[in-house]
């Protein structure tokens, strides 16, 4: 294990998942999953609901540990990091929560300033400049004084994004960033993701379902189902992939390898109708 958390390995993949196996409540969420997230690229993780996309992000950030396998981030085996080293690593990772997770006691400005106040001794003037710059980047400098309850869903998402990039992280993890956004806000968020990636070289991981949106920004897509990667490639390759998985997922078909129905017994029996053998 590398001593310093800031050490940069000669590895083109910033995140490397190898043989990850996770069992939750008796269900195998990951079955020897292998994934590489290349540096400086935007990688999308897609898959049917309940396949463990958010769980994968939790593994990458050390919030969860697998039953087997390894998750390497910037050359560090996340499961082997001490608490302090893990926190040091997390300072270099931005995480956009599905529900924004803004601190409700603080206004927009203080939410974005929170990581700076916690981890630095920067003078107030500098903190103010950094925060206003980040808020300007997400188009919400004018909303600095608003409380989280006064924001729309899209605005809250952008404030959370400003907070996630306040330290100029090496990696940003977006958990369902497009859910509930109107077309205008969705386009703004897409533009922001692309701009952050191009201007700051931030590696991005997107967990989302919106294929059209993903096609516009992602360099690489992983399709996960049944605990494994069932398809991967750039958006064009994935779109033309003829496998039953991609056909069903991207075509929105009810029939295919992913069952629409959660496992259940016979409907007739559940409704109280006599069975064939009655």
């Amino acid at each position, binding site marked *: 294990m590398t001593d310093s958390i800031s050490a940069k390995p000669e590895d083109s993949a910033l995140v490397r998942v190898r043989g990850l196996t996770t069992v939750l409540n008796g269900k195998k969420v990951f079955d020897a999953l292998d994934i590489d997230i290349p540096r400086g690229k935007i990688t999308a993780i897609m898959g049917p609901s309940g396949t463990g996309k958010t769980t994968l992000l939790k593994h990458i*950030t050390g*919030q969860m540990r697998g039953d087997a396998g390894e998750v390497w981030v910037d050359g560090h085996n996340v499961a082997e990091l001490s608490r302090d080293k893990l*926190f040091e690593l*997390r300072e270099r990772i931005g*995480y956009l929560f*599905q529900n924004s997770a*803004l*601190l*409700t006691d603080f206004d927009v400005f203080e939410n974005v300033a929170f990581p700076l106040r916690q981890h630095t001794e920067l003078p107030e003037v500098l903190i103010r400049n950094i925060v206003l710059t980040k808020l300007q980047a997400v188009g919400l400098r004018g909303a600095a004084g608003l409380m989280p309850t006064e924001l729309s869903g899209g605005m809250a998402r952008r404030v959370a994004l400003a907070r996630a990039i306040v330290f100029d992280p090496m990696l940003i993890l977006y958990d369902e960033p497009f859910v509930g956004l109107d077309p205008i806000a969705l386009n703004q968020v897409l533009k922001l993701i692309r701009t952050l990636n191009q201007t700051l070289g931030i590696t991005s991981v997107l967990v989302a379902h919106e294929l059209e949106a993903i096609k516009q920004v992602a360099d690489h897509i992983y399709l996960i189902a049944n605990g494994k990667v069932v398809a991967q490639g750039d958006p064009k390759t994935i779109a033309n992939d003829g496998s039953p998985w991609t056909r069903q997922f991207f075509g929105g078909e009810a029939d295919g390898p992913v069952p629409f129905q959660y496992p259940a017994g016979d409907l007739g029996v559940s409704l109280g109708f006599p069975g064939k053998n009655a």
Partner: protein
Amino acid sequence: MSVASSENIVVRSLSQIGDCGLFLLRMLAAIPRSMRHYRETIRQLWFVGAMSLIIIMVCGLFVGMVLGLQLYDVLSIFGGTSATGTVVAIAIYRELGPVVTALLFAGRAGTSVTAEIGLMRATDQIAAMEMMAVDPIAYVAVPRFLAGVIAMPLLTCVFCALGIFGGHLVGVTWLGIDNGTFWSNMTATVEVVKDVVNGVIWKSVVFGIVVSLIAVFQGYTTPPTSEGVAYATTRTVVASSIAILALDFVLTAFLM
């Protein structure tokens, strides 16, 4: 209730007490780290302490007034109304002050702490802090715990002062007990160590630790659902009330 379900309840309760103890150890270990969040502790002191002042003052006043009225009525049978001030003071210092303050604190501040932390968990704010490399135990739990421990003795003192004032209001101003007798009997009988230190200080510090621990623990470990937060809030009041009254007996037995 079957024997098996009774055993389950006992095992669950013991397990919760064990978890609560481990959580206390985690908080104690995080106190040095939380020192840099001293502003948050002061902010919480305002919320759980200063914001509880009104209810504590009003209740203290009325408890003292009722006590003065009842004691005057009983003591007048034996011609001992001059002892009203003494008995009011001893009852408030030894028992009513710390116990009623702790019960009120659990209902007012304890529940708000539990609900606040529970909602923070339900809305991923705790997870967001962890992702921002901020230790939620040091930033969220410890400041609220310390604020409760600091606030409780101060609130108890306020309760006691208002209680005695209430007793004086009824006994002297309303029922005509001599002012000098009221105060001189009280100061001659009340002992600083036995009544004030053992009664007010020790008990309120212990109650402060217990109520704050229960409130923070329940909030921190609540399931992240609206139902979970509601149950946790209820559990804070129930567990705190039982702990306060049980500990009051134990402390009284040891400190007498």
